[in-house]
Each structure stands twice: as C-alpha cells, then as structure tokens.
C-alpha cells in the first residue's frame, strides 16, 4: 500500500535543484511526481520514481543526501469539497499529516494525491476502514503507463 518516496536535501541557492535532476536525467530516470519544501536556508526535494532504489543509488553517487520515506497515494474525488471530505477522514482518525502534493495523472473523476503521515500504517488502516482508495505501486504504475 505504501510507496517509497525519495527526499533530497538541497541548499537554497541557484542551481541546487539542477544537480540531482540532471543526474537522474542522465540515467534515464523519469520523475513521476515531485514537490519541494523550502525555507529561507534550505529545501527538501521529494520525488516519486519507478525504481526508487536505483534512483537513490544514482543520487548518492552524485553526492546527495537521500532519505527514503513511506508515503501513501490516495484517490480524491475530483469535485469541489473532494479534498475537504478526505481531510475530515484524517481528522476523525486523528492522523497526523506532515505534508501532501499531487500527481498530474487523473483517472476519470478521481485525482491522486501523495500524503506523508507521521504514522503511515495507522493511516492505511484508517483509510481502508473509511473505504478511501489507497493506490499501491503496481496500480500506480499501471495508471501512469495507461
């Protein structure tokens, strides 16, 4: 159910983002989705790729500090209030959400968001109970390839 996301430490300076991106490009790694968290001083680049282990090795060879984090890809109804309803599920289950970002792929009337929970396993269980669709890696890749 859980996806492995790569997080890369970046300094907040011009060009900091291009080094890891270029390294992945050279190795032919496509980014399925990404987000950047930034502060005045530093940033964190978060990536979802097909083969996280290989991408991690590539980035580390480039000298990057990389961490693997478990995240969930969750379906969200593509209508006003879709996310708000989902957040209500999180709230009722008392899930602590660290951050979120989106996939650009969309299936019919459903969008796909990436959520990082403080406790991913508790989140999986709570979302299942609430009958929210959590997309696993196999299904994710199938959709992206479609």
């Amino acid at each position, binding site marked *: 159910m859980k996806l492995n996301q790569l997080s890369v430490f970046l*300094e907040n300076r011009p060009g900091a983002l291009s080094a890891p991106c270029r390294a992945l490009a050279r190795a032919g790694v496509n980014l399925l989705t990404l987000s950047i968290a930034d502060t005045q001083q530093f940033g964190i680049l978060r990536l979802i790729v097909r083969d996280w282990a290989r991408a991690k090795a590539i980035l580390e060879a480039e*000298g990057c500090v990389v961490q693997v984090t478990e995240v969930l890809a969750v379906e969200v109804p593509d209508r006003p209030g879709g996310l708000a309803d989902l957040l209500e599920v999180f709230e009722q289950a008392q899930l602590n959400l660290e951050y979120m970002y989106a996939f650009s792929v969309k299936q019919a009337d459903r969008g796909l968001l990436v959520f*990082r929970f403080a406790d991913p396993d508790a989140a999986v269980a709570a979302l299942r109970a609430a009958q929210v669709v959590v997309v696993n890696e196999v299904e994710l890749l199938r959709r992206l390839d479609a």
Partner: protein
Amino acid sequence: MSPNPDFNGGFHPASAVDFLPPPQLRELQLTRLQFIVRRAYDRVALFRQRMDERGLTPEDVRGLEDVERLPFTTKTDLRDTYPFGLFASPLQEIVRFHASSGTTGKPIVVAYTQEDVNDWAAVMKRCFLACGLHSGDIIQNAYGYGLFTGGLGAHYGAEALGASVIPISGGNTERQIMILKDFGVTAICCTPSYFLHLIERAAEMGVDLKKLPLRAGVFGAEPWTEGMRQRIEAETNLKAYDIYGLSEIIGPGVAMECRHQAGPHLFEDMFLPEVINPETGAPVPDGVEGELVLTTLCKRAMPMIRYRTRDISALNPEPCACGRTLRRIKRIARRTDDMMIIRGVNVFPSQIEAALLAVEGTLPHYQIIVDRVKGLDELEVQVEVTSEFFSDTVGALEQLRQRLSHAIESIIGIRAQVRLVEPHTLQRSEGKAKRVLDKRKL
C-alpha cells in the same frame, strides 16, 4: 621625576610608576619577581613540580634575566587544573572569580584576592589617566559585565579614578545611544567593532555623535586596526585608544595607550613582559616580533609565571613623547593559535567542534565563517548534512539547526547562525576541511 602631562592640572601621583627611571623600575620588578616565584613555588603544585624537574629553586632568581630559566605556563595548564588547581590562595581569601573561553567546553577560571582586585583597579585607573581621563569624566562602560573580565575590570578602575560610571554593560544599542546623549557621556569603553556598530546605529537614529561631549574611547578585547581608528575618529570627536589585557593575567589593564596613541604602554611594574620565538621558546630582542609572554608580578590568588599569551607582538623600547618609561607593545593583530575573537569573546574552533559533536554524536564537516556586518561581528557555522541527520520534514531539520545553534551558544557564549549545507560543498584542503574563514578586514 618628570611631570605627567596627561593630567590637565599636572602631575597625578597614581601614575608615578609609569615614569620611573628604568634602573628603579628593574629593581622593583626583580623584588616582585622574587616574591611571586617564591609564592608560586610554595603554593602551586604544578609550578613547584616543574621547578623541581629543572633543579631550580626560587633562590635561583637573582636577576631579571633569570626569568628565562623558569618554566612556561600555557592555557592547557589552566584547562588541566580546572577549576582551582593553579590558585595560590585558599578559597577563603578569594573574593572574585572570572572566566573566559577554554579551548574546549570548559572555561578557564581565574581568581582574585581583595589585594588583586585593588591592584587591578589601580592599574585600570592608570589606563584611564594615561588617555587623559580623570574625576569629573562620565564613563559609559559598555563592556559586558559578568564572568568576562572587561565589564568589572573597567568598572572598578573608573570608580577608582573618581569618574562617574554608567555600568550599562553590552548590547541594547539604542539605549546606549540615548544615554550617551542624555547623560553627556565623555568617555566610552567597549570593543571597537561594537563602537563602529554604534556609530552606524546613531546615524540611523539621527543622532550626531560629533555634537556630543564624547572625547575618549577605550577600545579593546579584540584585535583592531589603524583603519578602524581613523574611521572612528573621522565620524566622532573622540580619540580612540587601544587597551590590552587578558583574563589569565588580570583582565583589561595590562597595557594601554597614552594620549600620543603610539601603541599601548605595558605596565611593566605589574607584568613582566618577554617576547619569544614561538617555535623555540627562545627570547627575541626588543623590536623583533614574537609571542608575548607575561609574568604577573603581584597577583596573589593566581600567579602566572611566563604565561604564553599566544598573541604576536614586539616590545618597543623607544622613548614616548608622554615621558613614560614603560615599553610599548606593537598592536596585536595575529595569534600563534587558532583562537578567534568575536565580539570581544575568545572563540576556539575546537569549542564549536565540541558542540557539534555533542549534538550529532559524530563530527560532521563544518566551516566557521566570521564576518563583520554593519560593524558587528557575525559568526556562521556551516554544517554539512549527513544521511544520519537528514530528515524528510522541514520541522525536524529546523530543530536540528536550533539544537546545533543552542549547543554552540551554550559553550562559547555568543549566538551563532547555523547553516545546513549539502555534503561535499565545504572546501577541503589535503582532505581536511578548512575550518575557519575570517572575512573581517582587520
């Protein structure tokens, strides 16, 4: 005895020793050297042991030149005997402690008997007299009060002088400027970099320092330059005087410039100076640069015999226009070790290393960057992020940054900006990172 031209009314008896004819000064020094060596030998185990190893006794000090046979004392000795191991007085006789940075987490502790405190005030009074201050002056003392010797050292000296002292301590620049103006302050004591900061702040506040009665600045506790003196004097009506001192010897008041501003006169009746080749330990002649070594001639609680200051200087025996027979020391701009002086505070890279190690458990690659922004020293520590300490959330990284910053501040006593940087970005030479980048133009 020559008249003392410092004092508007003529000779001031408190400065009499400054003008002693050299033979009398040497005689006084020898008497005191014999006293202090005897005291240290009888009461300080480490010194006695080192004398015994050399087969020396206090009786071997027959002339001033015999000082060269005595063992050196180093900062390491103070650290190894922390906190009270070098005291020559029982604790009941200690009336004051001060402390300054050691090379690692523990500070260097110094102690004073009542007589030591009185001697210190007397020598600080001579400092103020040398630059033409006297009772009636209003002295704003912006050196930090506390364990640092600067604040209380200048305070007691200024009171002994009979001046009106404003014990404002460091910081709160706006209030400093308000009081300078409202109280009609005639002299200020602080670090020269802080005064430059004060000049800039005063301009921003629309206060014209040139219109104030401020006429003297007693600046020290950090290296500074002729360029800084010129800038200070161009933007105010005060004369900027260089004062030198260090906690291990007494605090401020080891040497002070007279009104001719031609290098600090060392109070040789209290502190016996030598300049040595820092590599060999051999003495060098007057005028030649080397490491300044000082012996306290009067200090009872904690006599320092041949203390290696690590400051690079030279003794200037040329007569000064003021008539003082005390030799002058060359302005100190360099040291033999890696100590930095930041906002008047002694900082060793090893202290910052100890703080980083305490937080992370292993030592990350780091670089210390010192800069002067708007006249104020800024300390930044860049730390390479490692996979052990990289966390996926911004909050956790911010916490790491704050923990590092707090650990550094709690060891060195001043705030450091910690910047997390990518691995392998800090400059390395011969496989070892260049630890300190000092961008200040000194």
